[in-house]
């Protein structure tokens, strides 16, 4: 059975170790066919997730509590009769032992749910195998960041989250012809919520007007591949595992260009490697690594997001930020001013519209933004 995940922070390894197929809901071809319905105050992404769950009773959908609308979307899906829905409680806090415990407990609960829909209880080895498979692909994806176009990276990341991983299934990383023009184009960061295949045309349009995405920090992009921080964390149980020492990355690693990206990729992947003696069981190791490496806007405080962004924006010489969000997404919209203040960069808000393509008005905005930065 396919198990669709609404957040990259729900460990897919755990699902596949149970013998079922985890898939990012955002990578589903039929996630939102046609126009995005825009209802007052309703997040179009959450609405699409609910409709998808209602239309696919043969699949399971794992909602998360990372936002109010997905949380209540789960309620809607159940009310509509979707019996294979599960709500994963992602803690918003991250600096306490209680948050880590909560995450681990949710993983156990998720495992129990997966058993009820046809999964089998995995052995430690099965889980380790799945962790290793994903570790390799994450590593390759992160290594490919500097060598691929933004669109190629987005496609590869989407494929990874769809469940294609390993050397055979992931398309080979190739140098794009677009990279030749890299030096003249304006490096930008794309930060925000889910950026789906329907939206990838944006990346082509952006390149056509002289910009390029040097950092894809959307929900299922580079941000979902780790590591959480290059700065030592202030206290909390996460400090040990996600600190530079634990990852084997120097605090300045991201400021030195491509090799540092590789080092960081390797560091994060190492953290998903077979368990260290300190962590104990593979499940505890998996939980610990995820919990400690969540980089998202919903966390409180969401300083880890800014700590993650800071070295990357600097090392990739980003000159502007595109803040991508769905209509009704308060969590991302509220960060616009802080992003401006914190990084002293211009921020352009782009909203996923009703149409899958690029609206002329938005294209104009994009053009003007890039022109301004030239």
């Amino acid at each position, binding site marked *: 059975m396919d198990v669709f995940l609404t957040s990259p922070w729900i460990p897919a390894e755990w699902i596949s170790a149970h013998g079922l197929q985890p898939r990012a809901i955002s990578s589903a071809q039929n996630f939102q066919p046609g126009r995005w319905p825009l*209802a*007052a*105050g*309703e*997040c179009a992404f*959450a609405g699409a997730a609910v409709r998808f769950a209602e239309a696919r009773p043969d699949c399971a959908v794992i909602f998360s*509590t990372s*936002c*109010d*609308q997905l*949380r*209540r*979307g*789960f*309620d*809607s899906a*159940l*009310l509509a009769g979707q019996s294979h829905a599960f*709500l994963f*409680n992602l*803690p*918003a*806090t991250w600096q*306490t032992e*209680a*948050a880590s*415990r*909560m995450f681990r*407990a949710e993983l156990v*609960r998720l495992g*129990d749910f997966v058993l009820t829909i046809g999964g089998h209880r995995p052995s430690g080895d099965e889980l380790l195998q799945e962790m290793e498979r994903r570790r390799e692909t994450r590593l390759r994806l992160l290594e490919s960041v500097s060598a691929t176009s933004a669109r190629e990276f987005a496609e590869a990341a989407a494929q990874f989250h769809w469940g294609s991983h390993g050397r055979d299934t992931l398309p080979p990383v190739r140098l794009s012809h677009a990279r030749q023009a890299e030096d003249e184009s304006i490096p930008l960061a794309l930060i925000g919520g889910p950026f789906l295949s329907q939206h990838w045309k944006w990346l082509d349009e952006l390149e056509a007007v002289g910009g390029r995405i040097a950092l894809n920090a959307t929900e299922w992009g580079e941000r979902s591949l780790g590591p959480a921080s290059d700065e030592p964390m202030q206290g909390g149980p996460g400090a040990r595992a996600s600190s530079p020492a634990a990852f084997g990355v120097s605090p300045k690693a991201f400021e030195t260009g491509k090799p540092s990206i590789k080092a960081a990729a390797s560091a994060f992947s190492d953290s998903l490697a077979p368990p260290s003696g300190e962590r104990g069981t593979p499940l505890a190791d998996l939980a610990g690594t995820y919990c400690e490496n969540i980089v998202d806007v*919903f966390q*409180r*405080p*969401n300083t880890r997001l800014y700590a993650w962004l800071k070295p990357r924006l600097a090392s990739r010489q980003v000159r502007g930020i595109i803040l991508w969000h769905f209509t*009704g*997404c*308060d*969590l991302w*919209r*509220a*960060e*616009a*001013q*802080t992003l401006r*203040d*914190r990084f002293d960069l211009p921020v352009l808000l782009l909203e996923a519209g009703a149409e899958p393509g690029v609206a002329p008005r938005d294209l104009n905005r994009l053009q003007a933004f890039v022109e301004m930065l030239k």
Partner: protein
Amino acid sequence: MNTALRQLSLDQWDARYAQLRRDGLSEPSYGGPLRRHVVREKDLRLQQLLFDNSPAALRLWNFLLTENGRLHQARAAGHKIVGTMKDLGTVPVMAYALPNLRAFYPDGAWWTPCLMECSDKLLHEAEKMGIDASFCPVRAMLPAFENGRHFPKPDLLICSTGAVCDDFSAIAQRLEHLGHSILWWEIPRRRPPAAGETACVLPGDLTAPQSQVDAVRAELQRVACALGELAGEKLTDDHLAAGIGAANQVRGLLNSLRQSVYSAPAAPLPALEMLIAEMLAIHYCSDRAETVAVLEGLLAEVQSRLSRNEFIISADAVRIFWVNPVADLRAMNLLEELGGRICGSDYMFTHALDLIPENLPPLEALARTALADLMVGPTSDRAARIVRECRAHRAEAVVISRIPGASHCAREGKIILEILRREIGLPAIELEVPPVSDPMRPALTSRLQALLETARPARRPIGVSPRKLVSSHSTMPKI
């Protein structure tokens, strides 16, 4: 039945106040004519409201409208000020357990644009701070923090996070980015216990896994430590037990008031005053002892009216269950003007009305109470309580009042409407009330009129309920 009692406009209250003074009205230190809040504080909206005409209501309004001033006085008197956000009812019980702490909800600033008819420009200022009109009016608290012209800057800020509204959480995060340090504590999304899992009974006829209660208790322990540190005195179980006892006194009074008003054949107290009174539960309007006095006064007035068979709103009015607080207080008047009355309410803090268990270790009891917040659990739980109370108070229709920009309203209202339709088949509508609803008044009026006109023909003689209303069979989905 006598409905000779009248609601008064502000102008009429001027004369009424003068008469009461001549008759020897005794008032607390914050007392005075309502008019002064317009003159001094620019609470212009008062000029558009209708008020209950009792001295008890006068005291209630003066208590509400002097809160910021009283907080400043408390600060000057050496009290530490705690700003507690979002949890609506739990952390203040803890804070007031220590003698030199005063807790209040900066969230309450969401009514300031209404009261001041936006003359304060808080919403405009919030927009300049990056939080525009797509967010809930609670964004007014952002500039209120910055300009210091409303409440005093708290010595400690505490905010619940996790299963909370996105808009509020985002605004609070923006506040922290602006330099106001926040102690975040996690309130997980409440879920039903799984088979084989240790279950825990919560207030409000709810259950949750003991593991969730344990997690919340651990979080509240962190809050307790921070409060103790601020107060310079450890917050002990004895303190907390006393605080819970005092909270339950307030909750008990409110329950008596709600029961008396909502179950009466006609309304002995208007909807607006009931809304304000219920709000006192969440942080005692910054003065716990005075809250008790205010509520005792209101309850005595209601009981006196009931004994005299005197009512403000006639028995003919359609009995409405109201869901969510309104951003514009005027909306409550409007409902009554159109021939409705409130017979039940869920203003988003029912967990602050339920009694806190006193037979448990205090933090355990508070954790259970916090988890009993209907806003942090499945929407079906909230709907179930609404259904129960509609039945108990023989509601004839339901209004779900949407808060502009509030993330929970987008989906929650639809779910509640669907469950209401399945369970009791009452006419129900959603409507959105902005902070100053005057431009929307024709639309609000016609929607409410349509609801009332739909409900009236379905009316049975009192005591004879529609079949569905007395049905004991529930098809409520378990979420």
